[in-house]
């Protein structure tokens, strides 16, 4: 029986803080973008916060993740610094990628994040490779490859999973099924009752969980990670969730209904978690308020400091292409 997160004061506060950080970070990004203070594009994961929060709780700092174009949540949950993330999005020299990557390429190797990825399923075989490396080096590290339901139509997904299964690598393929690959509904796209049915075809365990429930995601990830670390090979997890915002800034939400969006807003993972933590006695209302206020203060300060940092410089672009 795993730890009851909501009943454990420290874990509950940390998990709630992670979800709030993701939510507030992305709200700030949306706001800055809307006011013309941030350029480029962005893919927001508001509504999906419980998935990276629960999954990363089951990981060690030196475990690897690969992430997606919708990757702010994974990055934050794995332990990245919001100021350096925000600096990256604000095109600053102090950003994680020195302004060369932006939202879609943030990585933080210090916390094992091998990077968001602008190519759907691009991170799948890379996670397989990181797991292969961990196995060959004998480090007991595990890799978790976050991906969306859309990635499951890609050849890279298939090839990455096939190799991982053949070599029984310590990797977890974690699908955040937010019900749409851009506008394509996953129900329509895949002729499966649940996406985890596909795991059997690859000879690996598969499970579907409520992606808006931190505990459910944690439990499934913990089991998969423990098995991977013990040499039991890969696992596929489908975490069902929903993205409240459009795919990106171009999205007019023509492919889904207002009712559907409202229904999922009603399943907001944050108040859900707060209610459970209150009921279980892990957190008091004062604790909950404190977490929310602290995150707000932290985020505000991160934005201010990021904004004050020097702009990314074009001085050494040519010499930055190759490692020395």
């Amino acid at each position: 029986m795993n730890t009851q997160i909501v009943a454990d004061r420290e874990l509950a506060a940390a998990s709630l803080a992670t979800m709030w950080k993701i939510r507030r970070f992305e709200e700030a990004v949306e706001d800055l973008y809307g006011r013309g203070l941030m350029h480029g594009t962005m893919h927001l994961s508001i509504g999906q916060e419980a998935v990276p929060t629960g999954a990363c709780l089951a990981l060690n700092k030196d475990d690897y993740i690969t992430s997606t174009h919708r990757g702010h949540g994974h990055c934050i949950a794995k332990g990245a610094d919001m100021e350096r993330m925000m600096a990256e999005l604000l095109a600053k020299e102090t950003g994680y990628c020195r302004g060369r990557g932006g939202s879609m390429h943030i990585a933080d190797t210090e916390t094992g994040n091998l990077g968001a990825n602008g190519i759907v399923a691009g991170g799948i075989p890379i996670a397989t490779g990181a797991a292969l490396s961990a196995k060959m080096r004998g480090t007991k590290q595990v890799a978790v490859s976050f991906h969306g339901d859309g990635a499951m139509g890609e050849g890279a997904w298939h090839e990455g999973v096939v190799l991982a299964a053949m070599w029984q690598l310590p990797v977890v393929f974690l699908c955040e099924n937010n019900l749409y690959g851009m506008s394509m509904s996953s129900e329509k796209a895949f002729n499966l009752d649940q996406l985890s049915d596909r795991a059997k075809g690859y000879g690996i365990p598969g499970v579907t969980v409520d992606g808006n429930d931190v505990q459910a995601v944690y439990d499934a990830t913990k089991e998969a990670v423990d098995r991977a670390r013990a040499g039991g090979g890969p696992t596929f997890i489908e975490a069902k969730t929903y993205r409240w915002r459009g795919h990106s800034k171009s999205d007019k939400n023509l492919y889904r209904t207002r009712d559907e969006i409202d229904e999922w807003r009603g399943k907001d993972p944050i108040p859900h978690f707060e209610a459970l933590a209150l009921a279980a006695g892990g957190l008091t209302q004062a604790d909950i308020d404190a977490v929310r206020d602290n995150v707000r203060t932290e985020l505000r300060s991160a934005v201010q400091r990021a904004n004050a940092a020097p702009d990314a410089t074009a001085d050494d672009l040519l010499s930055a292409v190759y490692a020395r």
Partner: protein
Amino acid sequence: MTIETTAAQPAAAPAPAETVTMTYSEAIRDAMRIAMAKDPAVFIMGEDVGTYGGAFGVTGELINEIGPERIRDTTISELGIMGAGVGAAMTGMRPIVEIQFSDFTAQAMDQIANQAAKIHFMLGGAVSVPMVIRAPGGSGTGAAAQHSQSLEAWFVHIPGLKVVMPATADDAKGLLLSAIDDPNPVMVIEHKLLYKTSGEVRTGDIRTPLGVAAVPREGKDLTIIATGVEVSRALEAAEILAADGIEATVVDPRTLKPLDSDTILRTVKATGRVLLVQEAVRTLGFMSEVSAIISESDAFGYLRAPIKRLAGLDIPIPYAPKLERASVPQVEDIVAAATDLVRKW
């Protein structure tokens, strides 16, 4: 100007005078054996590289010496293999990924072009991808259009990759060992017709530095710049030309990126005539770039004749032997073009 991407090469052991005769294929295997003995992070991954010994027998019996953990047979999954190479390279390993035919890199292109090549830059320098991709290119084996292409220009066109085309057995070894040392993804394009050719190869842990051209022959009348299998054809042509009183310099860039432009321009200035020879299709091929580099440089003023390109026809490689041979520059084509250049100008 040498493009400023040449990585500092670790000091190689003092150049041993000793050489042995071995095939191009054996030289590559020797390099991999040496690298794997020295560094436990180096491993080979690819289709049928294990017991089968590789589609062209390059890994041979390495699996018996080194074992299946580091001579790693994969499923037929070029994209997956390439991505696994990228992930392993980002996390402390130094994979050598073998792709059976360079044509199949098309299957793996996302991981080569969008991931391996870009990660170091895109992630702000925090990570590097020290991976070697070995893939044989070229025609001449009757394998037709999907197994015979010369795709080097694709890779040269992607910032973040280094591209190497060894033309001799010694370079096949020396360049590969340099590629394995390099902290960047390096595409090593071998040539199928060269695998069984032999040459003198330096013994031991030697290097041919990346970004340094070879000048295997010097002559005063024209400069022939050739890559891959065309280097040996150019040298053979130079012998024939010499009998006819035409003395050719032959330049083998060896590394297409970073390119040793200095040597190219120096030799062009010395002869005033230049013949560029590539097996790849003509349009926007590597030699188009070499031509542009010469045209834009002060070597232009030394030219006594227009720059001449000899290249593969702009067609898929056909199957029938006569058609295949007619598709890419042969020795007699080089002789004819060189003679024309020198006699006319």
